[in-house]
């Protein structure tokens, strides 16, 4: 068993509730212990680094100092939180050397781990395999990683073909019995950071991804990022409301939800009923009951 300092992130309290809930259950089922960082603050996500380099390091820095006091590596489910925390974990000790200014409290004694890596190690796959209570019965899906789980490479440590064609979720889904379809938009940007200030920009990027998923024959998109998830769902819904699109919506799943479903753990009714786009289609046709 490994213990981690857990950084839930602001999305876990609202838009990405079902992700945090199912991710926690799955990580615990993999025999890890999650200890929430006490009184954690927002990492600043896409906004702090747009206005101040100091804040972009200082906000996640406060959380990292607490985690370091706990003596534990950090797990943050949200790709944006992961990216900001991992950037600061890399930068802060280095800044200390470079600038030689007031010593930062963070010494760099701990790492920030991306949950998708945690879920797809050989050890994790072995545990998941041993705990499967049912399979996805060849459900055709595409995996959507988005940006920050893989980029920038200097922060994520992702290298080689994995940068453009990551396979962390693919491996897990194949184990769960899904048919993972090859497609070109695994790491395309959905524009989530522009969802609020410039919605049409985000919509255009997202619908291109959604259209390609449908054309590739997938019945669902699987993601591991709450910002991507929100964008993939709400841009489809809002495009229909605005009369931009007639097409059928394609459901979106979190990787952790499908893992929980196949391992028979967690409250999936709570998770799936929270989706804006119903998941009944792909699940009911395969008699994968969750209610």
């Amino acid at each position, binding site marked *: 068993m490994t213990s981690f300092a857990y950084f839930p992130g602001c999305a876990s309290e*609202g838009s990405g509730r079902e992700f945090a809930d199912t991710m926690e259950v799955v990580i615990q089922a993999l025999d890890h212990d999650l200890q929430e960082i006490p009184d954690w603050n927002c990492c600043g996500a*896409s906004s*702090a680094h747009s206005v101040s*380099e100091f804040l972009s390091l200082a906000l996640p820095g406060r959380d990292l100092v607490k985690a370091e006091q706990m003596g534990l590596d950090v797990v943050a489910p949200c790709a944006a939180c992961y990216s900001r925390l991992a950037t600061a974990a890399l930068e802060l000790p280095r800044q200390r050397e470079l600038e030689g200014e007031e010593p930062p409290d963070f010494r760099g004694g701990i790492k920030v781990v991306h949950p998708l890596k945690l879920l797809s190690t050989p050890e994790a796959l072995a545990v998941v395999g041993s705990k499967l209570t049912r399979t996805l019965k060849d459900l055709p899906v595409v995996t959507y990683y988005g940006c920050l789980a893989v980029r920038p490479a200097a922060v994520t440590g992702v290298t080689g073909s994995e940068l453009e064609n990551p396979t962390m979720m693919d491996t897990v889904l194949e184990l769960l019995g899904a048919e993972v379809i090859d497609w070109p938009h695994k790491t395309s940007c959905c524009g989530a950071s*522009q969802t609020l*200030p410039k919605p049409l920009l985000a919509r255009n990027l997202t619908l291109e991804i959604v259209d390609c998923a449908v054309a590739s024959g997938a019945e669902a998109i699987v993601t591991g990022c709450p910002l991507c998830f929100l964008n993939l769902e709400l841009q489809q819904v809002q495009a229909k409301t605005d009369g931009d699109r007639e097409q059928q919506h394609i459901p979106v799943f979190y990787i952790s939800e499908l893992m929980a479903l196949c391992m028979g753990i967690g409250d999936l009714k709570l998770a799936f009923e*929270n989706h804006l786009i119903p998941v009944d289609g792909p699940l009911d046709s395969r008699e994968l009951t969750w209610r």
Partner: protein
Amino acid sequence: MPKPTSHSEPLSASPSEPIPASRLTVGSTHNASLAACYQCGKCSTGCPVASMADVLPHRIVRLVQLGLKRDPMGSEHIWNCTGCSTCSTRCPNQVPVAELMDHLKADALANLIPLGADAAKIAQFHVLFNKSVCKYGRQYELGTVRKLKSSRELLGQFKLGIKMLRRGKLRLRPTRIRDRKEVRELFRRAGMGK
């Protein structure tokens, strides 16, 4: 830790002055300098918002190299940038293009560069987001949305808003951390708090 007041120092010589090549670095996650750019254009080819760019990413790098920093600081593209880092990741010379966009945005705000309507809206979003974090220590999504959107825009997304509220995807009230003073102090040191 970078000096709060000098976060933009490597690039913030007067916008019209040429910047010495040795100082053309951005952040230190990437040690490569902007001077390494040889204008292959790979960053612009992979950029998801290049089709709507007023100034393409590789041209922005060139302008900064030439010391003509004021032009890109006033461009809409640095605000349209989604922060996907495709440019930085694909650059054959490890030029930190995405990080440069962040620096230019911060500099544009600090130097009160006039912005077009779309750019101003995006800048306003980032400022409101940060204010929310400064106030509560966490992001209060509904509060930020209410301040950012006009009544007409809010009405257009009314149905969606209700759906999200019902599902608990939008919280009616902010969550506050205990030690908000500590977070506010960080904003003060960044020159952004009271």
